[in-house]
């Protein structure tokens, strides 16, 4: 599903964000990536979502070599993956419904189909009856649910979650992690970047530990070790 071979990223000749990083994630896995700040976790997600380009190495997602992806192909890649962020990244002037529907509208899907898909997705994430609310009318947990609904609306094979619980309280954090587990159970590969030791330890899933832009530890049923 995701294959990285000797991938490097330099911000300056002296600043190495990723250093010959290699990893392999198989379909349906739930992988947590941990590490201290500045170890290259977010850079890794940015490369995998084509927000930035790698300077060296090869990156393959679902059989597609995106190492040197053409700018015109980036939207196509992003329609096949889901991404959620710590700061939710919702469109402030769109309602809950519109934020989720937007991911389908950009693909040119018809309004009727969008209606039914969005309705059922909002049910799945527990936001029934909140269709017409704007992001500023929602709690942090609700915003992250909208973000998850938007990321999952086109049923991607992979979901990247970059610190999705960083802005949430304990209760909401648990709920969001449960939602990610549920998504994983349905077959979606989940790549979770997190600092939350308790959450990582409770998952009992694969944990990749990064340091200085490289993988220093990779355990099938891992723990947060730093």
């Amino acid at each position: 599903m995701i294959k990285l071979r000797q991938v490097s990223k330099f911000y300056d000749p002296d600043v190495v964000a990723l250093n010959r990083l290699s990893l392999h994630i198989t379909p349906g896995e739930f992988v947590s990536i941990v590490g201290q700040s500045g170890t290259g976790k977010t850079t890794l997600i940015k490369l995998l979502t084509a927000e930035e380009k790698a300077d060296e190495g090869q990156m393959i997602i679902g059989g597609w070599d995106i190492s040197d992806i053409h700018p015109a192909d980036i939207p196509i890649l992003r329609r096949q993956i889901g991404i959620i962020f710590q700061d939710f990244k919702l469109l402030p002037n769109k309602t809950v419904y519109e934020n989720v529907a937007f991911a389908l509208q950009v693909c040119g899907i018809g309004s009727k189909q969008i209606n039914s898909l969005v309705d059922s997705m909002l049910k799945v994430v527990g936001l029934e009856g909140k269709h017409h609310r704007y992001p500023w009318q929602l709690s942090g947990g609700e915003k992250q649910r909208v973000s998850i609904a938007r990321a999952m609306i086109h049923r991607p094979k992979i979901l990247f979650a970059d610190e999705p619980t960083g802005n949430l309280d304990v209760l909401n954090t648990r709920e969001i992690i449960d939602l990610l587990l549920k998504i994983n159970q349905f077959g979606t590969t989940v790549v979770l970047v997190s600092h939350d030791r308790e959450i990582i330890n409770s998952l009992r899933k694969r944990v990749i530990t990064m340091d200085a832009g490289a993988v220093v530890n990779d355990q099938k049923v891992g723990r947060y070790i730093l």
Partner: protein
Amino acid sequence: MISFFRMIKFAAQHFFRNFGLSVVSIIILLLALVSVNIFLGFNYVADRAIQTVQDKIDLSLYFYQGIEESEIAHVQEYLNSLSTVKSTELLSADQVLENFKTKHQANPDMLRSLTEVGDNPFGAMLILKVNSMDDYNTIINSLDSDVFNKLIEKRSYDNHETAIRKLESIASNVEIALLAFTLLFIFISMLIIYNTVKVMIYNHREEIQIMKLVGASNRFIRWPFVIEGMFAVLFSVALTILIVYPFLLKFLQMYFADLNVDVLSYFQANFYFIFGGQLLGALLLNMFSSSIAVGRYLNR
């Protein structure tokens, strides 16, 4: 087709949901457009004022007493055939005398001098209007021959030559100044519109990034912003018409009534050219500015 309608829908949503920002954009566009129209109005007034002064200056040819009507008619015919001559008016010796009496009716000394002379001391007179002040010299020169000098006693232009030259120089300076100001004004308006669009897009830079992350193509992100800008242009041009017509033009009309300048008619006669041109110009400028401004964030 779905995408096209969606882009318009997104633009409309954006426009009305960011109403504060939209109003600011409209006001800035409105100020620029109203300024352009005020300038156009004054431009027209200045132009008409110069034209009016030019029209008031004519060239009078005084014929010797007793010149045959047929000879005068021959001169008139010749002058009418010149492309530089706008019109000619012939006054007979009797009409010239009547005009003299009317003009000096409050001056008994002048009237008495007429009685002393006895007969009508005046010859016929030909009044010429020319197309441009530059043409006076050409006409005078064309009349400077033995044939005409035998018939024409005096040319009134001689007395006004300095004044006409001065007016000519003022008129040409005013024209250059108006052209320079118009170009400057258009340039400033273009800068204002360009920067307004840039600020508007800058406020949406994070949204553009989010749209990209969700998989929107550049076209799908760019066009709603461009269309949103078009809405602002349409509103501002409509408001400009509503403001310019009832208030500014009527004000100009009243203020320059003495000059016999009809600004309102000028705007009415050139309505599509003036406002259509402004609409088209502002739309093109807006499309250009928003494409560049959005593109800046799309390529990041």
